[in-house]
């Protein structure tokens, strides 16, 4: 399905706090048709892309994302995702996608036990996806993280499967792109910062691309993720053909 002018929906849960940042980036920096969707809605209002923003939905009670996953709108998000709809989960949104079973694995407490808020370098592992198509494979982006529970975990067989299917899209790296323990801010297995589902339409990542998108703030690497998503919904090139990666 392609559209000439994609509609973006940013879900708002009680406790979301990056919803406005995501909205601002899409609406005012990238000039996209964007709306908020309250978590009690039972309709996605015909949006083409769903953003699950960062924050502390339901105060992170029980486990991060565990309760948001049962919000009325998540039923719609799950069927939208199962039907191939594009869903991007950022930080708490990534946690919610894991809790909802739309992405494998879970996000544990950071190994250092502290909340980490800083710019990190992430390497684009595969450019031939809806979420990375305007990047080059191996390109290093500088995007901030801000989380206490971003320590990605999955069992070995799941991890091997993710590697085999090219589902690991971002890894924490040094500025030069090398994978080191030091570059890993939270203890994530295999330095994983973001993954995509098997269908290639649901992606979750801990870094906040919406915080590195407005040129006024000095960093625009985050835009490249949103630009990739925009490109993927206006042209079906990346929906069926994962070989057409190019740099725009």
């Amino acid at each position: 399905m392609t559209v000439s002018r994609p509609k973006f929906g940013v879900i708002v849960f009680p406790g979301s706090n990056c919803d406005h940042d995501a909205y601002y980036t899409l609406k005012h920096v990238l000039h996209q048709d964007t709306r908020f969707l309250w978590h009690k809605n039972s309709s996605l209002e015909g949006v083409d892309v769903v953003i699950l923003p960062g924050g502390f939905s339901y105060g992170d009670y029980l486990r991060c994302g565990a309760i948001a996953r049962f919000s009325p709108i998540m039923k719609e998000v799950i069927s939208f995702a199962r039907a191939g709809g594009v869903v991007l989960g950022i930080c708490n949104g990534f946690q919610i996608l894991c809790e909802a079973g739309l992405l494998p694995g879970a996000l544990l407490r950071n190994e250092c036990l502290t909340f980490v808020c800083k710019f990190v370098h992430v390497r684009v592992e595969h450019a031939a996806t809806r979420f990375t198509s305007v990047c080059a494979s191996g390109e290093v982006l500088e995007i901030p993280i801000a989380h206490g529970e971003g320590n990605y975990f999955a069992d070995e067989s799941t991890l091997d499967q993710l590697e085999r299917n090219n589902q690991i899209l971002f890894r924490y790296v040094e500025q030069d792109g090398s994978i080191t323990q030091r570059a890993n801010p939270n203890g994530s297995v295999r330095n994983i910062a973001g993954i995509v589902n098997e269908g290639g339409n649901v992606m979750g990542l801990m870094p906040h691309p919406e915080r590195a998108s407005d040129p006024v703030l000095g960093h625009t690497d985050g835009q490249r993720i949103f630009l990739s998503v925009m490109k993927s919904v206006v042209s079906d090139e990346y929906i069926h053909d994962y070989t057409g990666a190019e740099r725009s």
Partner: protein
Amino acid sequence: MYLAKIIITLRKSILDPQGKAVHHALESLGMKSVEELRIGKFVEMKIDTPSKEEAEHITGEACKKLLANPVMEDFSFSLEKIPTG
């Protein structure tokens, strides 16, 4: 009426940095014989049913569907009958 006491812990294969930090603190208190320490969650739930089987079923479902995340956690529980009225 039954009272379910549920214990949720990180799976054995998962590093528990919080438990490790607390363990270090106990060591610095001089409690050298404490060999391992892991931190989990405790949940109490009152279930309005006369049937122990049903209480067991409900508690198990609650754990599987919400209280514990099987990717990273294990759970166990006990049930005790509590007088009603």
